[in-house]
């Protein structure tokens, strides 16, 4: 790709956001309203906080909590997900518990956890990890359960050792589902990151917003809010890049499959369930609550 094409591509994607920002800048330019300061003033505030204030320190604090929570949740979610996905008995036994934990709004845990473990960074990382854990776990379980049974046949016929089967066959085959879970987890994790700091903290970007609000520094509130937005956006963009890289094979297979005549692709979907369709994947991601049929059945029994 040459520079011209890249610029053209970027232009096609960025003209609308640029227009929105420009409109905001111009329309708020002469604003006297206390609650809606001019964008230029907010922008100046961000620069000031970044150069002379504690902006970077706050971002670092928040991001370390987020990273620790997300990574630990990712590892735990994948490990438990593969075990629970593979072993039906254990899955049935823990499903009522899983169902309860998942249905409960995890934000409600913030007071308990912070009251019990203090306002330092560890309880915050824990809360972020806790909220990220569930979608990763549930999507991993779902991914393992949706594996093509042929995979296990191949592993058995060629006497692949079980740990190798899990690491080199099950894990990559489940990765599309795991990534879907992680994408949901990122959104939830960022919310928890901000909420846990707003509840009580001495540092962090959420704390900065709340503190500014309490002392009526509205421009700072806006600055913090915009920084949070940018942060969330950058995390998502970074994750999508990682996902594209790790799942390059998957997107290639999908594209080739969909390029064929629709009827044939549909027939193949019916014949080979593990080849996932991004549309249904997306739908599934949104319907996390309904996906694990066993869990749902178990709940009904419980009721």
């Amino acid at each position, binding site marked *: 790709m040459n520079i011209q094409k890249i610029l053209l591509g970027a232009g096609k994607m960025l003209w609308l956001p640029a227009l929105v920002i420009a409109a905001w800048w111009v329309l708020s330019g002469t604003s006297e309203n206390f609650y809606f300061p001019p964008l230029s003033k907010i922008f100046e505030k961000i620069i000031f906080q970044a150069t002379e204030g504690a902006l970077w320190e706050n971002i670092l604090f928040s991001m370390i909590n987020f990273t620790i929570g997300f990574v630990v949740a990712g590892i735990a979610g994948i490990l438990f997900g593969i075990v629970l996905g593979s072993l039906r008995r254990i899955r049935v036994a823990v499903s009522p518990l899983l169902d309860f934990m998942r249905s409960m709004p995890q934000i409600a845990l913030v007071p308990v956890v912070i009251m019990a473990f203090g306002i330092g960074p560890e309880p915050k990382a824990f809360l972020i990890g806790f909220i990220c854990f569930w979608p990763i776990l549930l999507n991993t379980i779902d991914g393992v359960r949706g594996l093509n049974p*042929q995979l296990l*046949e191949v592993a058995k016929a060629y006497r692949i050792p079980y740990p190798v089967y899990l690491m*080199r*066959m099950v894990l990559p085959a489940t990765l599309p589902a795991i990534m879907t879970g992680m994408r949901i987890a990122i959104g939830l994790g960022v919310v928890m990151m901000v909420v846990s700091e707003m509840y009580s903290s001495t540092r962090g970007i959420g704390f900065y917003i709340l503190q500014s609000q309490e002392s009526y520094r509205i421009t700072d509130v806006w600055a913090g809010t915009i920084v949070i937005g940018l942060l969330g956006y950058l995390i998502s963009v970074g994750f999508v890049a990682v996902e594209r890289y790790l799942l390059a094979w998957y997107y290639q297979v999908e594209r080739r499959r969909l390029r064929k005549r629709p009827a044939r692709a549909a027939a193949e979907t019916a014949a080979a369930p593990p080849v996932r369709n991004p549309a249904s994947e997306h739908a599934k991601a949104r319907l996390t609550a309904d996906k694990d049929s066993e869990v749902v059945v178990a709940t009904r029994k419980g009721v």
Partner: protein
Amino acid sequence: MSNHTSDTLYVEGLSKTYGEGSTAHEVLSDVSLEVHPQELVSLVGPSGAGKTTLLRCLSGLLEPTSGRVRLGDRPVSKPIEDIAVVFQDYRGSLMPWMRVAENVTFPLQGKGVAKAERDHRAQEALEAVGLGDAGNKYPWQLSGGMQQRVAIARGLAYEAPILLMDEPFGSVDAQTRFDLEDLTLRLRRELGITIVLVTHDIDEAVYMADRVVVLGGRPTRVLETIDVGLGDDRDQIGTKENHLFAELRSHVLNQVRHNPAI
């Protein structure tokens, strides 16, 4: 690649029943057959006759309800390293996240083969199936027929003397199918592999085999075992015009027709 065996594969009084009690469904009943070293035996029968069930028992993937499978005097109650399987669905059996060469060498890790030897064997096996330059590609970059050749190469690199093929050419177009049939016959001639081929295609069963085992009835049993006296050199046009081929084909077709499985 050394793919020789001197052991005969025996199936003795094998039965398989799925389910229990009133819902029990007997699929295979008292199936006995032998596959001699370097022989190509076709198992042919109508759809639903339990051909795949029989093949899974042969490979040790499925435990029979009664009877047994043995190779020489070793029981085959679980998969053994002397038997490689080529599955019908190459999409499900090759791993799209691994390059072709890795797909071929992957099972060798479990066998404890060193890296250099693995790579050497993969290259050799891929060359044998005419894909010597495809090692660095991904399976999905290849056509269906080529993917099935990769699956065959994986079996070859595994150096199992016995190759079990479950409708291996069922998902490719007719021309590719003929090419794969001839490729399989050539590999067998060159490497001396023993092959058990499961198919519902009667032409293919007769064209490929030294012996055809006709399966049918309800539950499925061996209806007949036919020696195919067509010699070692088969040709898609010549052999199929041969009157002996036509006779065998009609004979097998009659057997299958008069003993439907369902």
